[in-house]
């Protein structure tokens, strides 16, 4: 992991991010673009090929075909009609030909057509993507802020009662299943207190104008984001605490103390900044977890995002949709990790100089 992170990346030029001495000469811009292109070609493309291929064969090995389910739902027993559907959806071809065709279509940014959603797969995904991104980003922020804050607090007095209480709370939140946490939040804030709506992203049938609409979404967002964030925050708590305690033992911290800096200044300026690196690493890794975790949270809160789309697609064996969602999710996770690599260089210029 650490080895991978120290590879030069297209974004690992500290100048680009510190901005102070950045000169935008044409040759320099070209250089960065070339490196981005190279990285996409050597890393992202082969990875995507592996993901597409393995997902394709995995989903086709699941029992129950799309035409079988469609015909049972539609009460079609006429074999001629079933044959026609099989041909229409290209399911009469050998699997490897279907796979080649699929790759060919994807190369042209065509993810296929979803019978279940009655629209092109890409269109359906783009339609649902904003909802998921809003939920994920808010959820991650909740996790990051609460987890890091708790971690810093816990590390300030290792093995104190405060530390133990916070760690215990963290373990509890992490061990509690996401859906259970969601339902408990629903019961408390929706049913008992009646403060917040417990499902969907907007008030259906409501019309509140732009500002009112944003507030409406925000109100619907609180519970799912908290359910998602609290579950994740335990990880940030653990990582922050460990990194803080480790950094606190470093020589430069002793120096800082010797200089006569206050404990607070030492903790935030010297210890915390050096503890950020593992936190960012976890952030990148957790992004994928949050994406998959959104399936559960979205189901509990009836959130109209990618997770709900994927759930419905799996139940209906809507292969093009399942594949499309997985491929796009993989792409998002890969791109986020590219950004995280860039963040590394910004946080610790030594990595770039490696």
């Amino acid at each position, binding site marked *: 992991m650490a080895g991978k992170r120290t590879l030069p990346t297209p974004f690992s030029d500290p100048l680009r991010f510190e901005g102070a001495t950045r000169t935008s000469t044409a040759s320099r811009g070209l250089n960065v673009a070339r490196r981005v292109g190279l990285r996409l070609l050597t890393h992202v493309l082969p990875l995507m090929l592996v993901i597409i291929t393995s997902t394709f064969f995995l989903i086709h090995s699941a029992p129950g075909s799309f035409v079988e389910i469609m015909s049972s739902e539609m009460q079609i027993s006429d074999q001629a009609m079933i044959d026609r559907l099989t041909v229409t959806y290209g399911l009469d071809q050998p699997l490897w030909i279907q796979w080649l065709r699929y790759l060919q279509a994807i190369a042209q940014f065509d993810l296929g057509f979803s019978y279940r959603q*009655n629209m092109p797969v890409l269109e359906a995904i783009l339609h649902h993507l904003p909802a998921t991104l809003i939920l994920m980003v808010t959820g991650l922020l909740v996790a990051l802020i609460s987890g890091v804050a708790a971690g810093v607090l816990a590390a300030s007095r290792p093995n104190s009662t405060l530390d133990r209480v916070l760690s215990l709370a963290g373990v509890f939140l992490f061990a509690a299943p996401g859906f259970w946490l969601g339902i408990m939040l629903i019961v408390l804030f929706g049913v008992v207190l009646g403060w917040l709506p417990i499902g*969907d992203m907007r*008030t259906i049938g409501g019309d509140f104008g732009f500002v*009112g609409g944003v507030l409406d979404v925000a109100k619907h967002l609180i519970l799912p984001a908290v359910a998602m964030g609290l579950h994740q925050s335990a990880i940030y708590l653990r990582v922050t605490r460990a990194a803080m305690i480790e950094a606190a033992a470093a020589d430069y911290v002793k120096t800082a103390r010797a200089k006569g800096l206050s404990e607070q200044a030492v903790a935030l300026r010297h210890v915390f900044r050096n503890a950020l690196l593992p936190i960012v690493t976890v952030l990148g890794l957790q992004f994928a977890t949050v994406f998959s975790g959104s399936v559960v949270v979205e189901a509990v809160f009836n959130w109209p995002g990618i997770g709900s789309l994927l759930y419905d697609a799996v*139940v209906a064996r809507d292969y093009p949709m399942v594949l499309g969602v997985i491929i796009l999710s993989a792409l998002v996770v890969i791109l986020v990790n590219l950004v995280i690599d860039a963040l590394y260089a910004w946080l610790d210029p030594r990595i770039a100089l490696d």
Partner: protein
Amino acid sequence: MALAACGGGEKAAGGGNVGSLTATTGYPEPHTMFAPGGGGGGPGFTGSKVLERLARYNRDQTFSPVLAESWSIAPDHRSVTLNLRSNVTWHDGKPFTSEDVVWTIKAYWKPFFPQTILDFLAGVEATGPLGVVVRFDRPVPEFSVGYLLSDGANYILPKHLYAGTDLLLNPVNNAPVGTGPWKFSQWVRGSHAEFVKNPTYWIPGQPKLDKLIVRWWREPASRAAAFETGQLDIGVHNPAPLGDLKRLQANPQLSVSFEDQGAPLGLHFNTRNPVVSDPRVRRALLHAVDRDFISRTVYYGYAKPAAGPILTSNRLYFDPDIPKYPFDPALADRLLTEAGYPRRAGAERFKLNLLASGWSEENGKSGAYLKQAFEDLGIATTLRVPDRANSLKALYTDYDFDVAYSQGGGTYNDPIPDLPLVFGTAGIKKGLIFRNSARYSNPELDAIFDQIKQEVDPARRKAETLNAARIILRDAPIVPLVEWPTHIIQKTSVKIASNAASIATDSWGDISKS
């Protein structure tokens, strides 16, 4: 403010029953708003709000007119005259006429509804813009006629939108055009569908509300909570998990009611598999099951033990003296020994492939109980609970089970068409769901069904029906164990005036909110 609007509840100036109703269902979001032939509870719910039938079947086993103002059966019972309602228009403005009805009966009903009196259809003719005569080769019973006009998906379709198309794949199914109180407005897939008031509906003053929103909620526990927060006004088809029902019943804002028609759930035996092809083995397995226990534990007492293919809720034909399969493990043990499967020390009597259809949690739990009950008898039982798609495939396409716990196998009104579809030879159709999963075929029973279809004398019909029930119970290909009435949850402020036997699939023009 946003919150107040959540559950509808907005009152227009002057008050009254203006506003919107937010409804949900225990079924998942359908693949289409209206599915020709039915397509299960999902499309059955949404389609029935837009499209109408000729008549309505009521809770008290009577029929009342809808699109047909009246109908009469000729003295020889071989033809039916329909008088259609005047001044009815389709949602797109075209007039509703006898042309629509003639086309619907020929092109939709006839191919989609087998084992009904339509098997004897001789011809359908329009006698005028509002008159239709339907002729049959053989005499047709009065109840069967009423039932044909009012059953589930027997809607009248607009000929101008469907004629000459492939009904199943017609895009109008996704945005249906009907004559009902609710006009389809939009469908946001994955979330909800909206229906607006039909301003020219033929019943003055209906619908009583302006808007109907149907929301699909994936998670049953949070769906139940949404009733408590007031986000949902009404839910049909078992919207809440049974464990939450007591809490909801105690809530003064909510009322929980039960549809009379309990869904039969029971054992399906694969009559083509060597061991369970023997009726003695099937009877033994039935005696091994404690139906009271299943009703009390799995269904929290909301289900009751079933007696046979004529459900106990069937006010037309149920006979309490019908032979039953009481819980009696000792008798089960003896029957198995007689069938050639004695209990052997250290070895199983035989192996059993048990399937529980995975579309409801209760089916899986009942499956777990059955596995134990069968293993207590010394039968090595493997239990599978596949998801909905694979359960349907295993039951109705691959016939991959020895014994299955699933729904079906009983009727709460006339034996036609349900019983021939489930127990008749004609019901063995690979790939068609909720038909003869057992592949049970008995020419004697087929002949009785044929007789019932054309028996016009009510007393003789009843005798024939009970005769069929006895044969089915003796051979035991599919036997209901419990009857589970579906529940409806509604706010106490929501009023339903309808007397329809199935509230869920009624048109809901008369629902009001105070």
